[in-house]
């Protein structure tokens, strides 16, 4: 029960962060990905500061947490054990980045933006879920 409550609270804080930072808006994200706009002063570096702010807070907590034998709420530390750089990793990253650049949504903001109740967001999320299932059930990942 405690773990479910922690999940709800962490999700809520995460969603609030996406909202406050503006990353819930695809136009804000595309404004960052549009590096060519540096040449005319229209580039929006905000996303870089979101990453910086995120790493600044997450890194010390995660560095402290990752060596613990078990998490505070019990259970086990579910840390990734795969350390190999594979073609799947890079190809997956490239495909994800392409979709991200086409619309401006990555998974977190797309889910959070459902709060706006817009049909375009819903369609993106459904397509994203289908993409995930296709990859899973084709046993590629």
């Amino acid at each position, binding site marked *: 029960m405690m773990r479910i409550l922690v*999940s709800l609270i962490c999700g809520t804080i995460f969603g609030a962060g996406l909202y406050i930072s503006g990353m819930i808006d695809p136009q804000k994200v595309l404004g960052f990905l549009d590096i060519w706009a540096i040449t005319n002063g229209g580039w929006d570096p905000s996303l870089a500061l979101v990453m910086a702010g995120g790493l600044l807070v997450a890194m010390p907590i995660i560095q402290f947490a990752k060596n613990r034998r078990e998490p505070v709420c019990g259970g086990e530390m579910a840390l990734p054990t795969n350390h190999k750089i594979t073609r799947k990793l890079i190809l997956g990253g490239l495909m994800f980045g392409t979709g991200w650049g086409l619309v401006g949504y990555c998974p977190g903001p797309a889910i959070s933006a459902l709060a706006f109740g817009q049909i*375009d967001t819903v369609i993106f999320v459904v397509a994203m879920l289908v993409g995930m299932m296709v990859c899973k059930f084709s046993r590629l990942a």
Partner: protein
Amino acid sequence: MENFTPVSALIGGGLIGLASGMYLLLNGRIAGISGIIGGLFGRNGTGSAIFERLAFIIGLIAGPLVLMTTTSISVSSVVTSPMPVIVIGGLLVGFGTTLGSGCTSGHGICGLSRLSMRSLVATLSFMAAGFITVLFTRHLIGGL
């Protein structure tokens, strides 16, 4: 740089980092959104883990809802892409994050915080593809 919002970006980023750190410290799990969603219909998504995942996802939607209704912070979420592009984009994001085992949160925030080389390579891959895609759509073919 008229759209640059450094203060809200840092505060929002800090909250994202806080949630990611807390999730690992308290629950022992990586706050990777694509992984949390993917695990809902995965072969190994079992038992109470399903409810933890659902709770996180409900929180992701509840966070903005709470701020929308209780504060004067006004943010929108504007999708300008035409429908076929939205669908293709969604499919690519879903397929790609599953194949590459993570997205901006799992690789970008959590992975880099763990100093994972795998996550660094993934982050550079999706960033590069994002830059090139926008360069192509906005400047080479003049918008979608």
